[in-house]
């Protein structure tokens, strides 16, 4: 299948009074149509900035320093706002973390979805718009849409609000859907429903999805591939099976072992020591070296390249170099509970 989205060596920086913050550093990945890619990382690792820079939603302090973004074979790296407006919606849509702030509290849910439909289909008749809104609400699993068309966001529960936001995002039939922590503010029971809905939509419409999260536990349900980000770089990327059953980067090990599901009773939870580095002045070499129990001398000197584990699995750690000592990962395949 052809690559729908291809990001090559993308670097994004913010200009601040203190200097330049390198939020995204040399990131490359690709996305096929109909695929779910999860981007995992701690807050501040640049995962949201990466999404926003692909959609060109960054503030004017941000600059794409180098690299290219190709969508459907067209290089959009140098596109201006006017060109992007034609692409957004048709190509990309976004679902944000907090559905209450994403919705307008003074408009009915139906009219907010209708607004999105009208923007993307200017000539549509009023009746057709209404039918389309009802169809969208059914698609995202809002039952009895005719009755709920005229309700306001405050009538809705958190899960229903997130469904409405997804209906708005899908109004333009986008090729790529960005979901930035769509379930973080929701209950566990609703979380599973929303994830199932994302997967259903992706199957029905063939929409490619980029799912951003900080929790490796959540994305196992729907992700086809997973990219782990740390300090602005992708440190490991592979299929879900490869990442969960055969992780290679020490940071991925750390993220997994921090989950309570991996804890052994009576022992403290594993935590990754130290703090993420300051991206104003990222350290020389591997940014994770100072928090890494398996760090080698070369980690402090030189940035590791992406080593190939398999055709789909890459990891940036010197442990995969053939000269490196053999290390047994602290966890092997699946949960140890």
């Amino acid at each position, binding site marked *: 299948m052809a690559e729908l989205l291809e990001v090559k060596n993308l670097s994004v920086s913010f200009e601040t009074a203190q200097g330049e913050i390198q939020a995204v550093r040399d990131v490359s990945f690709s996305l096929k149509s109909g695929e779910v890619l999860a981007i995992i990382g*701690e807050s501040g690792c640049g995962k949201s900035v990466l999404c926003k820079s692909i959609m060109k939603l960054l503030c004017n302090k941000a600059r794409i320093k180098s690299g290219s973004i190709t969508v459907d074979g067209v290089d959009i790296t140098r596109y201006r706002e006017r060109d992007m407006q034609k692409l957004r919606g048709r190509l990309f849509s976004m679902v944000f973390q907090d559905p209450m702030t994403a919705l307008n509290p003074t408009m009915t849910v139906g009219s907010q979805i209708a607004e999105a439909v009208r923007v993307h289909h200017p000539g549509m008749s009023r009746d057709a718009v209404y039918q389309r809104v009802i169809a969208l609400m059914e698609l995202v699993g809002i039952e009895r849409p005719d009755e709920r068309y005229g309700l306001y966001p405050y009538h809705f529960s958190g899960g229903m609000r997130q469904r409405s936001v997804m209906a708005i995002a899908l109004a333009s039939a986008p090729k790529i859907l960005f979901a930035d922590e769509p379930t973080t503010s929701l209950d566990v029971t609703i979380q599973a429903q929303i994830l199932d809905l994302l997967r259903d939509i992706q199957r029905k419409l063939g929409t490619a999805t980029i799912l951003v999260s900080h929790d490796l536990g959540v994305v196992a349900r729907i992700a086809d591939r997973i990219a782990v980000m740390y300090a602005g770089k992708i440190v490991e990327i592979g299929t879900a099976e490869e990442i*969960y059953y055969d992780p290679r980067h020490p940071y991925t090990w750390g993220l997994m072992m921090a989950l309570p599901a991996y804890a052994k009773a009576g022992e403290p939870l594993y935590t990754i020591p130290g703090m993420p580095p300051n991206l104003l002045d990222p350290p020389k070499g591997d940014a994770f070296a100072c928090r890494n129990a398996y760090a080698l001398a070369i980690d402090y000197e030189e940035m590791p390249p992406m080593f190939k584990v398999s055709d789909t699995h890459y990891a940036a750690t010197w442990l995969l170099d053939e000269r490196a000592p053999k290390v047994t990962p602290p966890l092997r395949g*699946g949960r140890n509970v």
Partner: protein
Amino acid sequence: MSETILDVQHLTHQFRLTKHTTIRAVDDVSFQLQRGEIFGLVGESGSGKSTVARCIMNLYRPAGGRIFYRGVNVCDPKQYRMHKNMLQTTRQMIFQDSTSSLNQRMTVADIIMEPMAINHIAPPGGSLRAEAERQLHDVGMDASYLNKYPPELSGGMRQRVAIARALSMEPDFIVADEPIASLDVSIQAQIINLFKHLQAEHGFTFLFIAHDLAVVKYLCDRVGVMCHGKLVEIAPAAELFAHPAHPYTKLLLSAVPIPDPRLERARVLQTFDPSDLQDTGEMREICRDHFARMPVEGVPH
């Protein structure tokens, strides 16, 4: 049997929405906490678990029922006034959102010193500032943070400051209302370890409110499950996770994500219709210390 530190009896609380509609947030909830245990209260948002915590901490005046803390009925204004000092110094609360629970215009040192200054506590560390430094050290932060302001800190660090502030009073009883919900997974693990370590060291009784069952399973000794304002099941943590009795507990357990793609994709969500929850029900003991809400006759509902 150890000493009962908190005894909640038939607690009921309702909120008035409009002139004609009231919503029953907490409906006839009873449970006891033993000294030194970690009790987890779980449920979806809107199940009334935060309201229970706020009633216990005298932030709401309950509409019905009684709450005894060390034998003092905290809902009775007269008894509350008589024991005000004891109630305010030995009970502490940690909130979910550290951005709003810490004053942005106070330094970390001032935040931790404030409760001691208000209650005229002679700090064991000599000066208030030295005591603040010691508390900060206990939660894993060094003295360089004393002069910082909350917005300069990360979410995990702010939550540590909130914990240090609660601990500065050397409380017997701490209520934490979703203290880790807004944190990253790796930071969550740090805070959970910190709770576990501090609880072992100080031996305080801990009411931990959460919706993340994986965390509750790991941290808590006993767990209560709330649904639509009612307590539906209460059991030791290991027992509850091994043999859930109430359908709602089963639903909650089936919703916990598993970090394993094959198992996770095969996981099926249980269903539970909340309208099945009848008003007439009673807690029955299924096996030792394990109670579930049953209709007066028959199976769990």
